[in-house]
């Protein structure tokens, strides 16, 4: 079953929080809604489940047809950002979604058990929910929603607040679990790695508007405008006046290199902006600061058009105030037209 919405508007105290003209997620498909904090991601998710009290106008579609609240209630299961568990055992928590839908206790427990296994917490089945760690609790919350076997699954930043290892393990387990499911899944996240790992398509949500929508690979690789580029990690922005290019070029800072200007080859390339062979973009500037970040070093370079950041693993020999160049391989730079 597909879920979608048409002419969705959420307003609060006169301000428009969310405006989505059309969105649809097909059966068996996972859509990631990627956006910064406060973009309206959770609001969108709650509006899709008819759980958003501020939704002024929302036509939620199931299989392309407007859905009544009762239909939505049975079709949708949602996992909130923070796991809210009941004061009972892990197994009974996992069975709670089914119980809330009227399934008898014994049957609900039987149906829930395989999902505990799928999420790697079968050994915790008899534990009290209050003794769980954050990661374990989130696994229970996800198992509880999956056990319902609803046709639509809504996940609101299910990995928020988990440490890196726990998060990576849970993403892998969730991926396997979703592969078993035929539900239409909407995953709200601010992390592009989660989108890349789990979603077939990705929508970028900024200030309550969907700014870009496409396959996850396409969206992550080709930002539609400068703001989308920043959201996707293309935070090094090289405007036309620096590069001689027609449009803004954007790149990931870890794909940029720092060059010392003493290299004669570099000086020649600086003159051109875009290297003669067309393989590298080089921008001159002044090194402002060097910030060691453990494995890498962040270098901020002041250019004629503002500050540019580079992440490098190489040793930085130039002192702050010294002349440097930022180089980006053409394959790593993306053309980014202004919005509109």
């Amino acid at each position, binding site marked *: 079953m597909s879920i979608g919405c048409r002419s969705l508007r959420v307003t609060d105290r006169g301000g428009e929080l969310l405006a989505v003209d059309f969105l649809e997620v097909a059966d068996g498909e996972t859509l990631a809604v990627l956006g910064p904090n406060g973009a309206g991601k959770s609001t969108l998710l709650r509006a899709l*489940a008819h*759980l958003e009290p501020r939704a002024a106008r929302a036509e939620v579609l199931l299989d392309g047809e407007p859905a009544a609240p009762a239909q939505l*209630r*049975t079709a*949708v*299961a*949602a*996992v*909130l950002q*923070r796991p*809210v568990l*009941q*004061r009972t*055992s892990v197994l009974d928590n996992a069975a*709670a*979604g089914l119980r*809330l*839908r009227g399934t008898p206790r014994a049957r609900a427990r039987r149906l829930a058990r395989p999902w505990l296994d799928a999420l790697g917490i079968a050994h915790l089945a*008899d*534990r*009290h929910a*209050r*003794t769980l760690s954050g990661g374990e609790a989130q696994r229970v919350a996800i198992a*509880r*929603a999956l056990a*319902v076997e*609803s046709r639509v699954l*809504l996940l609101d930043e299910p990995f928020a607040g988990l440490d890196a290892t726990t998060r990576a393990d849970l993403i892998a387990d969730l991926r396997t679990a979703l592969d078993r499911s035929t539900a239409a899944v909407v995953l709200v996240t601010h992390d592009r790695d989660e989108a890349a790992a789990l979603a077939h398509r990705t929508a970028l949500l900024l200030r309550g508007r969907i700014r870009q929508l496409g396959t996850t690979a396409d969206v992550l690789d080709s930002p539609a405008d400068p703001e989308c580029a920043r959201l996707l990690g293309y935070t090094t922005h090289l405007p036309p006046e620096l590069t001689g290019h027609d449009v803004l070029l954007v790149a990931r800072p870890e794909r940029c290199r720092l060059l010392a200007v003493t290299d004669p080859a570099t000086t020649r390339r600086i003159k051109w902006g875009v290297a003669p062979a067309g393989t590298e973009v080089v921008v001159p500037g002044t090194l402002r600061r060097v910030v060691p970040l453990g494995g890498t070093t962040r270098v901020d370079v002041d250019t004629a058009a503002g500050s540019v950041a580079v992440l490098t693993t190489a040793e930085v020999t130039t002192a702050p105030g010294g002349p440097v160049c930022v180089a980006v391989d053409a394959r790593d730079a993306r053309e980014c037209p202004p919005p509109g």
Partner: protein
Amino acid sequence: MLLDGLLQAVRMLLTGDEDTWSITALTLRVSLTATTVALLLGVPLGTALALGRFPGRRMLLAAANTGMGLPPVVVGLFVTVLLWRSGPLGAFGLLYSSTAMVVAQALIATPIVSALTAAALQQVDPDFLLQMRALGATRARALRALLAEARLPLLAAALAGFGAVVSEVGAAQMVGGNIAGQTRVLTTAAVLATSRGQFALAIAFGLVLLAIAFAVNLFVTLAQQRDSRPSS
């Protein structure tokens, strides 16, 4: 004298003094009925106070909290005036009956149950109802899950209401009249026995009241221990 009275009281209870047991039975009947009425009124009221979004909610919550300290004598006076032969409800002829005592005690217990219910529900995660509904629960089922989640503090609310009414004497005396065999309960009987100098009898009534209080608290404590103990 105290020790002597205590020994006589224990003897009286062990030998099964008929009056004492009938008074105990009436006390339990009146107070349990009043507590049940208070629960039927107070739990929905407390739920509305905890979850509702309506003007005046905070005022009502403050009123319920104040009502927890409602002096039984004031309630007794109020109910007496209402039920007095020439009062607004005088036609029912309920004054000096166990029904009047139930009404008065329910009025004492309802604010206690309401305020403690509101507090109990406000302690549960604020996203609890949303998460239950997000799993496909109807509003009614989600609410039932919320009440189940707060079952221990709700049990404590019920027992606080019961404790308040079983031990009060002012309202029971005023609206019941302490009529032997009809409206005499443990507290009013103890007051009467003391005023007559029958200390052993008064102590016996006191002991029964204490035993009821202990049994009730033991029950709550055991329930809480059993429910909150993680299995590992």
